[in-house]
């Protein structure tokens, strides 16, 4: 075991040939994997394995790798340190107060190795089974079972008639019917405003000039006409307009100077 041949290029070979254990550190999947391989080289049932011998094998392997100036990954060194501790504990006279005892630690390690070995063997047996595409074959082109969806279209007579109504409507020649509405004409508003502005001396809201008997649509029309009339009178210099801010009420009063109403 002391003559470990280290092969960094080659693939790991079966670990059974303990005189020619060719390995590279990269080929092990961690310290437990390496320990299991070393344990197998003892050629005994894992239940009968000598943990002390295994620890020595592991430490020798790591020492060998370091002599060759190989970079040894940290987890291998941690395991080496732990195993070195286990080794000394196993060799020293038993201390009944030590907890856990070195024997218990050794047992745990043994149980872990057994479990890994069992799964490794199970994997090999699994892969050796008759596998589809390697050992057994399926039909290359099965017809397949198909679920065919039968589309059924649904519409009611109402849908149909409503659709036709919309078509007719969309394509009918467009005729605009403008209904006659009660309005206050600009002339009437101008006349009314001219009359009142002479009476009003101070600022007054535009709405104050509206005739009180206008209601509904007529009132809206009166507001619009009076507004235009106010603008017209302002243009002529006969009234002054002011507004505190946008959308605030509009105030007006007779112009200070100039033209006096006849």
């Amino acid at each position, binding site marked *: 075991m002391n003559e470990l041949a280290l092969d960094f290029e080659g693939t790991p070979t079966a670990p059974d040939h303990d005189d020619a254990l060719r390995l590279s550190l990269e080929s092990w999947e961690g310290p437990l994997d390496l320990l299991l391989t070393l344990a197998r080289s003892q050629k005994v049932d894992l239940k009968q394995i000598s943990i002390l011998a295994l620890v020595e094998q592991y430490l020798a392997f790591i020492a060998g790798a370091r002599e060759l100036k190989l970079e040894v990954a940290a987890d291998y060194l941690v395991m080496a340190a732990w195993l070195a501790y286990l080794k000394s504990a196993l060799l020293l006279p038993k201390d009944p107060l030590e907890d856990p005892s070195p024997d218990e630690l050794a047992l745990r390690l043994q149980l872990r190795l057994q479990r890994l070995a069992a799964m490794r063997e199970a994997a090999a047996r699994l892969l050796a089974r008759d596998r589809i595409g390697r050992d057994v*074959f*399926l*039909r*290359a*082109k099965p*017809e*397949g*079972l*198909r*679920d*065919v*969806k*039968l*589309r*059924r*279209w*649904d*519409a*009611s*007579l109402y*849908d*149909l*008639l*409503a*659709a*036709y*109504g*919309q*078509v*007719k*409507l*969309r*394509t009918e020649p467009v005729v605009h019917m403008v209904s006659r509405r009660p309005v206050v004409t600009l002339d009437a508003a101008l006349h009314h405003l001219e009359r009142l502005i002479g009476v009003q001396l101070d600022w007054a809201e535009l709405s104050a000039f509206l005739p009180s008997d206008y*209601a*509904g*649509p007529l009132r809206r029309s009166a507001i619009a006409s009076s507004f235009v009339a106010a603008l017209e009178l302002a243009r002529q210099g006969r009234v002054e307009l002011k507004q505190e801010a946008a959308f605030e009420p509009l105030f007006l009063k007779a112009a200070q100077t100039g033209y006096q109403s006849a």
Partner: protein
Amino acid sequence: MIDDLERAVEAMLFASDTPLDPRQLAGRFGDAVTPGQVKAIVEAIAARHAGSGIELVERGGHWHFQTPADLAHLLRRERDDPRKLSRAAAEVLAIIAYHEPVSRAEIEAIRGVQTSKGTLDVLMEAEWIAPAGRREVPGRPLIYKTTDAFLQHFGLTGRKDLPGIDDLRAAGLLDPVDLAFEEAMGELDLVKDGEEA
């Protein structure tokens, strides 16, 4: 007991992705068997499966496994998948019903928009419309009419059962959507004015 050669030929035919002839099958065994021997074996396999749910059939000298044609209905299961007719399809169907027989160009002229081929396909798939010959005008366009299935589905005894334009107007189906909207808004205005008064 089926002999080993017959088992092997059967497995080869089963796993193959193409039909195989006796020469190809024999080739797999090296020089151990002749195509003639294989042909006899293939025929024995076909005879063994006759009347079962698996058939070995010959097509132009090549053999392959398939399921019997009379069981095809069990291998495809049909399921209803109801779908609502789209608005466009409803319009086209209505136009065909009111104006039949009509060509696609005429449908488009009435609708005022282009009609996709898919819309007519849907209506034909539903078996509500069918081609009714060609219009004898340049280009000889296909013309469409409604079917008996159309009358049945919509509960009509004949085309004259379709309500006339006046009936539609009376039912409010000719009211433009935006006019109805304006009316509703007008009512709102009246309420507001009432509150102010």
